[in-house]
């Protein structure tokens, strides 16, 4: 599976998702502390009331049905917390007093301004996860709680207790703490203080919302920054790749890389080292291109030695059977000569091209002149010319254009099979004069298709006759096409029945 650099960086960025988790754990901790504090406070309240009533046992000596005395009310109200409910129950499970209300005011909106917007954004999300406290719940004090409530019962036994329970309708959680009121050695009643957890709950909710908002923003910002960085990296690398792929064109020429060549980072280094490699490749290509010429030059002298020696030998009185060997040696020499001439041809052409003047000429005229010569030069092979009546004007050298056609035709004749004629076609299209030479025969070998126009590249099987094949013919085609401002291409026929060589040169008016 192919995973792009960008996707990988985004995956790595997922590590940042730990931050919200840490925030959540932290907020949970805060909630626990808050609840603990609330329970402690309730217990302290219950204890304070129990102490106060301990000193005034007469207040508890109530008969059923009698109203709670004002003093009792006063004590309870002054000691109880704002949002708590306090009640007192005696050993007979009689409710002696009940003060306060579990429902308080709605929690205030005290969100910090800069985070407000962010928290509002995440609210739809947190609403799903969080339990929003409500003031709309049944705050009745059930009979069972008075008679058998765990906290009250425990306090009546003389043991202070605290617990959490749900409201009657289950929509709120109530914390309660109970404390016994002693009279001598006896517990005469129990004080129970209760509060909802709504206050702590909304603090918790708000904290959680903020943590989610902050971490989400941090995560998004971090991920976006990484994504931007990764995109830039991958686009730079992509550019470098595209250029590197295009650096060697279909005709084997090497171009220089531009992308990132001045950058000071590793990609710049990569681009530069790639450029160096390409330069070496170009040098090597030049070396190959010149090798044939140099080789032919170097071989000239030793061959001249052999030739002049043979010619001297011919003037000597020789035994009768020596003539055979002399003839063979001469044949070999002639073949060597042909090879050398071929090898030097490209080099000579290159130096000729440097000094050659360009003139305007009609490519059709050149083709028409050439075609009659081919029939004579290659008996047994038919040629078909398809050229427009109107002249097609090119800028270059007609001699060279003719030489190029020679090479293309020689190539086509070598590879042609069957008796289908070799089709030579010239058409002017879109400002280009397209010359195609097409023959029936084997397809181009795939691996070589792009290298055919390079120096000394040949796809011929060796040993075909006495003509040397050095892979310079199509290289010469390329040199001449270049000279005319055009390009050369080798293609398979569309139906695969043969090969088409195509040279397009710009037309002049």
């Amino acid at each position, binding site marked *: 599976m192919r995973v792009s650099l960008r996707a990988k960086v985004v995956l790595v960025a997922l590590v940042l998702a730990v931050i919200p988790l840490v925030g959540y754990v932290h907020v949970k901790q805060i909630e626990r502390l808050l609840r603990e504090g609330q329970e402690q406070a309730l217990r302290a309240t219950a204890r304070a009331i129990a102490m106060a009533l301990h000193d005034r046992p007469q207040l508890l000596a109530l008969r059923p049905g009698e109203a709670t005395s004002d003093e009792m009310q006063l004590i309870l109200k002054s000691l109880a917390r704002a949002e708590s409910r306090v009640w007192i129950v005696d050993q007979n499970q009689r409710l002696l007093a009940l003060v306060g209300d579990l429902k308080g005011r709605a929690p205030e909106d005290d969100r910090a301004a800069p985070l407000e917007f962010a928290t509002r954004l995440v609210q739809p999300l947190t609403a799903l996860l969080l339990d929003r406290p409500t003031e709309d719940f049944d705050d009745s004090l059930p009979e069972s709680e008075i008679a058998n409530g765990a906290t009250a019962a425990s306090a009546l036994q003389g043991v202070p207790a605290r617990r959490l329970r749900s409201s009657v309708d289950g929509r709120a959680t109530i914390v309660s703490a109970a404390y016994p009121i002693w009279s001598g050695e006896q517990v005469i009643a129990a004080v129970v203080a209760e509060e909802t957890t709504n206050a702590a709950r909304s603090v918790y909710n708000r904290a959680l919302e903020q943590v989610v908002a902050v971490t989400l923003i941090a995560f998004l910002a971090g991920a976006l920054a990484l994504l931007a960085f990764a995109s830039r990296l991958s686009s730079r690398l992509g550019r470098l790749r595209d250029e590197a792929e295009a650096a060697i064109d279909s005709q084997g020429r090497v171009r220089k890389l531009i992308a990132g060549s001045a950058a000071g980072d590793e990609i710049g280094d990569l681009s530069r080292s790639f450029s160096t490699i390409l330069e070496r490749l170009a040098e090597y290509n030049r070396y190959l291109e010149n090798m044939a010429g140099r080789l032919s030059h170097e071989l*000239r002298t030793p061959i001249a*030695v052999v030739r002049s020696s043979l010619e001297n030998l011919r003037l000597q009185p020789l035994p009768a059977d020596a003539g055979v060997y002399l003839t063979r040696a001469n044949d070999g020499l002639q073949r060597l000569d042909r090879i050398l001439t071929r090898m030097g041809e490209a080099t000579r052409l290159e130096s000729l091209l440097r000094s050659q003047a360009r003139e305007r000429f009609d490519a059709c005229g050149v083709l028409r002149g050439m075609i009659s010569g081919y029939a004579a030069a290659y008996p047994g092979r038919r040629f078909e010319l398809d050229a427009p009546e109107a002249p097609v004007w090119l800028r270059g050298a007609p001699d060279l254009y003719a030489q190029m056609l020679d090479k293309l035709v020689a190539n086509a004749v070598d590879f042609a099979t069957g008796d289908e004629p070799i089709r030579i076609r010239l058409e002017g299209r879109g400002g280009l004069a397209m010359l195609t030479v097409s023959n029936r025969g084997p397809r181009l070998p795939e691996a070589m298709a792009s290298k055919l126009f390079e120096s000394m590249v040949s796809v011929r099987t060796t040993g075909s006759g006495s003509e040397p094949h050095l892979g310079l013919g199509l290289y010469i085609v390329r040199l001449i096409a270049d000279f005319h401002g055009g390009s050369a291409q080798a293609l398979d026929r569309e139906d695969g029945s043969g090969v088409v060589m195509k040279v397009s040169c710009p037309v002049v008016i």
Partner: protein
Amino acid sequence: MARTVAIVEDDAAIRANYADMLKKHGYEVRAYGDRKSATSALRTRLPDLALLDIGLGDEPEGGFTLCRELRALSAALPIIFLTARDSDFDLVSGLRMGADDYLTKDASLPQLLARISALFRRVDLLREPPAAEEVLERGALKLDLKRLQATWRATPVDLTLTEFWLVHSLARYPGHVKDRDSLMRDAHIVVDDSTITSHIKRIRRKFQSLDGGFAAIDSVYGAGYRWTA
């Protein structure tokens, strides 16, 4: 008296082979392996013809220098360059130094001999007073076949021996297309097609420097060249 041919060639085997060959054909041969010995020897006694290699030992242009020195000593001395080089540039600069012809080393000895004897014939005729002339006239072109000299509108054209033979081959039958092979045969050379092309180009340039409107040599693509006059 046998004619003297000086060979200046740095490759000992080729030098010896050429010397032997020329001796067999009745020439007296003086062979030198480097420019210094050749200069000092040739200064004291000029040969009748000089055969020079361009690259001499560690002097890649030694032959050109030698050619200039010899030309300074004698304007009439026939000089032929014999070279392993085949770039146009070298040939053109060699001919500017005043050589009468040049051959690449893959030329055969008969081709070389044809040139040597032609040049000697020309030297002989130049010495004698003009007698029976053998002249080919084609319009403004006049070819003196004995002296191997060409004139265009009565102005001498400075052609090398090879170029003269090429012009003669074309002008002998005006209107006939001469293919490259028969041109080579007539000019006693064996070269590839592109060399013929550059020979023709050079000939045209020489005529055009005398007459800007010169267009008597016509290219017939795929076939060869013809003289139109």
